[in-house]
């Protein structure tokens, strides 16, 4: 599985989520991770149609298909439950 996170440097919720994602990923070592900045990696980020709220968490299966998408600031528990376990 792969987690794609779309965030921005000017977004406080993205900064808060950065640390939480790092901690959660340590519990799921087989997951791969890609972080896209809406400004720095604009072209790549826009391909995922991030919408109007950041951060965006997109979970992909091994074939690269989008399995689920969660938006906004989440607690650690909700991050694990909604993003990693689905």
């Amino acid at each position: 599985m792969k987690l794609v996170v779309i965030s921005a440097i000017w977004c406080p919720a993205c900064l808060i989520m950065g640390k939480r994602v790092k901690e959660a990923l340590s519990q799921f070592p087989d997951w791969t991770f890609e972080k896209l900045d809406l400004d720095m990696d604009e072209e790549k980020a826009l391909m995922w149609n991030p919408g109007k709220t950041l951060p965006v968490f997109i979970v992909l299966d091994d074939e690269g298909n989008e399995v689920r998408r969660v938006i906004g600031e989440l607690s650690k528990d909700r991050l694990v439950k909604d993003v990693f376990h689905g």
Partner: protein
Amino acid sequence: MGKKIGILLFALLLLTPFFSSVKAEDKVINIFSFRAEGCLYCAKEEEFFKELEKTDKNVKIYRFEIAYDKEGQAVAKKVEDLLGIKISTVPYVIIGRQSIIGFTEGITDVEILDAIEYNRTHVVRDIVGEMLGVAVPITGDEDDPKETVIRLPFFGEVQAKSVSLPLLAVVIGALDGFNPCAMWVLLLLISMLIHIKEKWKMWTLGLIFLFTSAIMYFFFMLSWLNITMLFGSVFILRLIIGAVAVGGGSINIRNGLKKDDGCEVVDSTQRKKLRQRIQEISDQPTFILAIIGIMGLAITVNLVELLCSAGLPIVFTQVLALNQVTYWEKIGYLLIYVSFFLLDDIIVFVIAMKTFELTGISTKYAKYSHLIGGAIMIILGILMVVKPGWLMFNFS
């Protein structure tokens, strides 16, 4: 015969208090009314005063025109110096120790009648009357002035106004500060400053940005305060500000109830322009030019961002304008407001500068600030129209 005269004298002595005491309704109350030629609300108040003079023969109204009449202006100046007030809004009425500003039928007329009643039934010095030679100075202690008094641990009894205004400045300023509008600009700025090699330059540019933002916000609020002090008593303006407060408060509550806790994506052209501008500032050949650039950035950014949070500062300045505190005290309260408005920005900036890492403030705080700020705005907006006296912290 001597015995009879003795009994009569004794009876007269017993009855003396009844003859000599003045009934409350007989106590003459002086009203000092400052007005201006052509002022619509002064004219409305005058109509009320004319009726009052017909129904209450023991009310004496002293009228002073302060727009054109030099004598009226001189009296107003003396009264201002005596009471430490500023008669900048008309109509302005002084009864005993109470000032009543503006005139709204059904509200101000009741306040004036209440003030007359209070001054009749309590021992209150008519300081203005004494100064103008139309009242006899009283001897002995006065009753407590008609101010709401609250009891606080350690501080004892304090007047509601002396606690409520600074507290309101702290609460509304802090809530306004959590407004996420300006935060994204600061974070973008820090993210670009963090790469400057000389740390002192980083600190200086960041602090100048915050300081200029504070000055901008302060002067915006001061200008608004001056406008509200001039026209604040005009009912229609109070009604408009009240409506803005209720509308703004409802939007805030709607934002606070939104399900998505995250950052709203700012328009990409706006983001690119801002990045470019910050880059140009960092690339300036001299530090002075960089400072000027960052000040210009703070001014323009805050001008745009003001629209985002205009509701709260406007409501606060209206409350300040309604209260009888000196102009310098009002400025002090504005400074308290702006300091707390910038508090979260300062915290984020200092942490970033110390740790070289950007820190965000959770959107849940912005959510709470939207909900609490929205509720406060709605309450203040309604009080502004229905019960302005409560905003002067007189709950009697």
